[in-house]
């Protein structure tokens, strides 16, 4: 009975790959056959087939090669192909009868048709450069995304869902783009604006808001495994937060993502590298590190590199390279030697293989120590540029300037020019500009003094030798030294690029690269719609899932490149689609729980950070655009000391006082061996390894956190205080509360339930003032003593409840 039920569900589900019954159609090898071969055959007959005579099925040449007169694929007499004989054989079946993965009947039929049609091979879809496919029959003015999505919906004889109501849509898009609900004023303006472009204007406002970069940065920090500690052994503090601030700042100013990538991989190798470019290379240094007594440096040189090259694979290529560390990849065409060629790009960075447990695990650069400090610094640089521009004009007519002065000026960088300008013995000494230059130099020097250290990448002048490591063991280098090189299945290294990390970045961002744009745009889609077009964002290889909408993914990837890798533009495109704007309610008659058809809008539980930020924001406590050293909100005592070595400098957790307590969650201190429990409770990763997709669990411990954690009680108390101040009527207060958290008013049932709770609690606290006072004493922020204690306590409880409910913690 149970099995029967299971089978029924499986059958009516949406097929993930197109096993079609249409017999005349030509089989699409890359999308239909290759996934089967990879999953069921390649473990033994794949690229890693080592024996000389081993049968391999990963290329046409191999599959049609004679093995004592027998052919896996017999092109002359397809029916005699060993593949067909064996998959149907009962005596000598393939896969063998004891193999864990067996072929289904539909898969056998498909293999039959493929071999009979000639057994043609093609490259795996994601290894071929994406192209835009123009859809025929364009409906007037239809959004490009909706054309792709609508086509598939029509195949299933369904239409888009009705549009979400405007309030829901405003909340949804605001959470997706900025990680917070809409502020009441812009929301009201949007709702009042009946104009055709109202939504677009609202979206633009969000894209330009400084919250945008803070929210979008989180996904990147998960992927690159950003943490404030070294991550291994003592798990000591590490100088790195300027990198995090740089990510926020760069996303806010919409730095094209190809440059965003390039600076991170190779900013130090760029000509006249700027401070920002250097800070960005913190990415290369993000691997967890150790200085455990007894650790062997060569072992960690290897491990650090493994970590970097494998993270590189996940973040940019959407491929797992880990298999190829020890042997040729079983599924994807990646020879072990190419793993080590790729590793060679990272093997010559100058830091030692062990961190010495030091905060400044060099090389380091000095950079502004917070986001406001970055802003001030940037302004000084703008002023400097203006001053130098003026100076250039003056220099032409300046009589005191000698030919040498002109020459020196021409070759000097901005810093030297300013020095020259400020030099009392220099040619500018008599000008007004000179005095301004002195003042500015002083400002710059003062600013620099407050700079802080951050880990950066530098290459050794003499590169380290890289060799293949047998079975991935650090003490078994073998073969000739390897030059840095890329994975050949993914195209060619750009001819004019240097064989270093900069060349590697050029390769990644070249228009020919088949994966980078697809992988990135898929993750951008994922954070907008909840799931990627490829549901395995960490795996675009043969074992990964096929895209739900292949042509759409490719169109977006190409558009992304052609737009100049413009993140904001792509997000605007996505959120203005009907696909995004439709209602997220589950629809009757459509059996698609994972929403692969995109027949409804996105909905899911919000991330840990958003859940916390929303409450702080609603209460007015939230501190945005802070940056700087990671903040430490309240945390139950003893969590770190119960784990840590006595010599660790992160064994004691001292909660911050004052405003730092309320910094946006992105800035919360990230100790990799023990992150803040309110983060991990809601599925935030440890950041010890790359995470491009968080799980979304639903547990009873989350309930405890939502209702009992100190900061949540505090934010509820402060928010309750705000409601009591801002409105005199309880109904009005509840409207405001729902307005903030849900962008709408409560319905009748919700209102009745909340008012009932308020009444019960008012009664209860009026009988026990002490307990009301106790509740109101939670948290360090000051609290308004002018309020009625009973009323305040009762309202605090109502607010906690609504904050913990699905009204607040879901995207819908």
């Amino acid at each position: 009975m149970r099995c029967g039920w299971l089978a029924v569900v499986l059958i009516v589900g949406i097929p993930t790959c197109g096993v079609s019954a249409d017999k005349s159609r030509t089989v699409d090898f890359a999308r239909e056959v290759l996934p089967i071969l990879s999953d069921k055959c390649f473990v033994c007959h794949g690229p890693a087939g080592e024996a000389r005579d081993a049968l391999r099925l990963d290329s046409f040449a191999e599959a049609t090669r004679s093995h004592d007169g027998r052919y896996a694929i017999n092109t002359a007499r397809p029916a005699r192909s060993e593949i067909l004989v064996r998959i149907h054989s009962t005596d000598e079946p393939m896969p063998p009868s004891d193999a864990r993965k067996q072929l289904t009947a539909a898969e056998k039929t498909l293999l039959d048709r493929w071999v009979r049609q000639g057994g043609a091979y093609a490259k795996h879809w994601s290894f071929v450069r994406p192209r835009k496919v123009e859809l025929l029959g364009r409906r007037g003015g239809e959004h490009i995304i909706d054309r792709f999505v609508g086509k598939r919906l029509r195949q299933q004889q369904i239409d888009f869902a009705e549009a979400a109501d405007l309030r829901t849509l405003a909340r949804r898009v605001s959470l997706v783009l900025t990680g917070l609900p809409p502020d009441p004023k812009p929301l009201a303006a949007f709702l009042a604006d009946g104009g055709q472009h109202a939504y677009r204007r609202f979206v633009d406002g969000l894209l330009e808001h400084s919250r945008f970069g803070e929210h979008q940065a989180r996904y990147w920090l998960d992927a690159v495994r950003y943490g404030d500690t070294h991550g291994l052994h003592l798990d000591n503090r590490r100088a790195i937060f300027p990198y995090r601030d740089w990510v926020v700042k760069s996303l806010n100013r919409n730095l094209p993502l190809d440059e965003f990538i390039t600076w991170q991989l190779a900013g130090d190798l760029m000509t006249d590298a700027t401070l920002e470019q250097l800070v960005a290379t913190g990415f290369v240094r993000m691997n967890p590190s150790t200085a455990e007594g007894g650790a062997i440096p060569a072992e960690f040189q290897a491990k650090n590199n493994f970590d970097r090259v494998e993270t590189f694979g996940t973040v940019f290529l959407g491929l797992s390279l880990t298999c190829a560390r020890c042997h040729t990849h079983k599924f994807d065409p990646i020879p072990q030697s190419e793993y080590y060629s790729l590793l060679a790009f990272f093997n010559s960075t100058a830091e030692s293989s062990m961190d010495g447990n030091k905060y400044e695990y060099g090389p380091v650069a000095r950079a502004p120590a917070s986001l406001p400090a970055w802003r001030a610094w940037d302004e000084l640089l703008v002023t400097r540029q203006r001053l130098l521009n003026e100076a250039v004009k003056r220099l032409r007519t300046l009589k005191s300037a000698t030919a040498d002065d002109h020459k020196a000026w021409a070759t000097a960088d901005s810093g030297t020019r300013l020095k020259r300008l400020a030099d009392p013995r220099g040619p500018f000494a008599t000008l007004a500009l000179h005095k301004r230059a002195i003042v500015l130099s002083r400002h710059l020097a003062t600013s620099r003094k407050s700079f802080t250290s951050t880990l950066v990448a530098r290459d050794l002048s003499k590169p380290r030798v890289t060799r293949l490591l047998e079975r991935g063991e650090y003490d078994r280098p073998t073969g000739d030294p390897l030059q840095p090189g890329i994975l050949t299945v993914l195209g060619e290294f750009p001819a004019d690029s240097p064989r270093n990390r900069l060349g590697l970045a050029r390769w990644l961002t070249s228009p020919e690269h088949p994966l980078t744009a697809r992988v990135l745009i898929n993750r951008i889609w994922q954070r907008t719609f909840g799931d990627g077009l490829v549901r395995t964002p960490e795996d675009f290889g043969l074992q990964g899932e096929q895209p739900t909408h292949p042509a759409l993914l490719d169109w977006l990837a190409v558009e992304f490149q052609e737009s100049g890798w413009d993140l904001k533009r792509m997000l605007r495109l996505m959120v203005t689609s009907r696909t995004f704007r439709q209602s997220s309610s589950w629809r009757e008659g459509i059996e698609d729980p994972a929403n692969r058809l995109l027949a409804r809008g996105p909905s899911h539980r919000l991330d840990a950070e958003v859940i916390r930020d929303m409450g702080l924001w609603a209460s007015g406590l939230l501190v945005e655009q802070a940056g700087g050293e990671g903040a430490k909100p309240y945390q139950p005592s003893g969590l770190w000391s119960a784990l840590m070595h006595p010599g660790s400098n992160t064994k004691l957790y001292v909660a911050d006082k004052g405003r730092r307590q309320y910094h946006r969650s992105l800035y919360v201190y990230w100790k990799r061996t023990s992150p803040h429990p309110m983060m991990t409770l809601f599925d935030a990763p440890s950041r010890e390894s790359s995470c491009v997709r968080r799980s979304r669990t639903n547990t009873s411990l989350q309930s405890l956190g939502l209702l009992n954690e100190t900061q949540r009680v505090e934010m509820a108390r402060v928010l309750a205080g705000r409601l009591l101040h801002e409105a005199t009527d309880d109904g009005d207060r509840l409207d405001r509360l729902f307005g903030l958290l849900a962008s709408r008013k409560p319905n009748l049932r919700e209102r009745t339930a909340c008012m009932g709770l308020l009444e019960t609690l008012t009664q209860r606290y009026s009988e026990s003032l002490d307990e009301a006072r106790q509740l109101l004493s939670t948290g360090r922020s000051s609290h308004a003593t002018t309020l009625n204690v009973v009323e305040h306590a009762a309202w605090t409880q109502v607010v906690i409840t609504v904050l913990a409910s699905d009204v607040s913690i879901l995207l819908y």
Partner: protein
Amino acid sequence: MNPIQHDRLDLTRRQLFGRGALGLGTAAMAQLLGRDLQAEGADIRSGLHHTAKAKRVIYLFMSGGPSHHDLWDYKPKMKQMFGQPLPDHIRNGQRITGMTARQKTLPICPSKYRFTRHDNNDGGVWVSELLPHTATVAHELCVVHSTFTEAINHDPAITYIQTGSQVPGRPSLGAWLSYGLGSMNENLPGYVVMHARTSFPEQSLFNRLWGTGFLPSDHQGILLRSQGDPVLYLSNPKGVARRDRRSQLDTLAVLNREQYRRSVDPEVLARIKQHELAYRMQASVPELMDLSGESKETFELYGEAARQPGTFAACCLNARRLAERGVRNIQIFHRGWDAHGGLPREHESQCKDIDQACAALIKDLRRRGMLDETLVVWGGEFGRTAYCQGGLTRGNYGRDHHPRCFTVWMAGGGIKPGITYGRTDDYAYNIADSDGQPLDPQPTPATWTPGSMHIHDLNATILHLSGIDHRRLTYRYQGRDFRLTDVHGHVMADLIV
């Protein structure tokens, strides 16, 4: 169909398709589905792939690497070789850590402790005087002298034995068990971790040791703490009584049901259930932690230390109470075994922390009829060297990390009682064959060296006893079907009843 069952059906269907394509492995899912849809009281021994011999696992983890020389692996011949250099053919060019690599000599360091032979069901077992209580349960223990690992330093080694990989990022043993078997008691977490107090809090522990890696994060170990709330955020805020929470939850349920009415999303219903579970846990956990009902006799068994929250003894008593309440997966971490110098002082204190409680746990489970279905495992991430680190005297010495052999014991849960397994050479340096000649086990996916137990073999055996085939409990991540034992692991059939 009752409403709760209906909720479950929706939920599991949702999980099956995997909202985030985080779908469970087919085997695990089919089993979980089966269990969820069965009535309460279904056979919890059914296991995932075969009948489980152990309903639950209690893992006593000695972090830092206890000295097998001074506790379990009796080497009388070393007495005569005090201070002599370790013979080259014994070390055989094997790597040693950076801490002793530059030491001029590697002097042989016999244990200063007296060993006594205790009868078991086999040829008897030698136990050090540091473990007098544990020695009294010798007939229950299966003592494996030939456990080994490749990792030579703490962080990689402990990560390796707990997650099957030296590099962070993989799910822990406990998470795999939770993923494979689910929970038997919905009012308590299915996987509970405790940290026992020590006088030598050396070496760090990491969340990853009970973390979920790429498995859904609800399989992570839940800390049962001796300080503050036993489970994080368990207590209501000050000024909030249990009846207040009831009113809140009733209101919350209305709000969530309204959300369900709008969205028809079954996960919303599942969340209502989780809020109710939390409410019940607020009662069940304090009941669990309340030892007032334990008899005087029990405290005599575990020792008075069991009355002090956070001691190893208290953790063991909690472990038994958790086991009684259906918690499947319990781990106690005891730090302080990393004795590079002053080993006698440190190990004497460490043994005092654990000895009586280990024996008490075994006896207590036995007298309650629970030992046969409870697997108890005792061990660390590696052993310690035959040679001395730093200054050597008859009375004082230190030992470096030693991965090539160390002792682990198991009891109950389908393990043969009262046997020893595997042996080491005269220096307890190499695993040896029955003639005492060094073996050099180099396990491959296809080969296993009889007489040895790699940490993957240990993990394969723990899963096996729990009803799980370690080769079949997989989770696809980045295109690969990952498992706890990677491509390795051999079930130690010789140890199983």
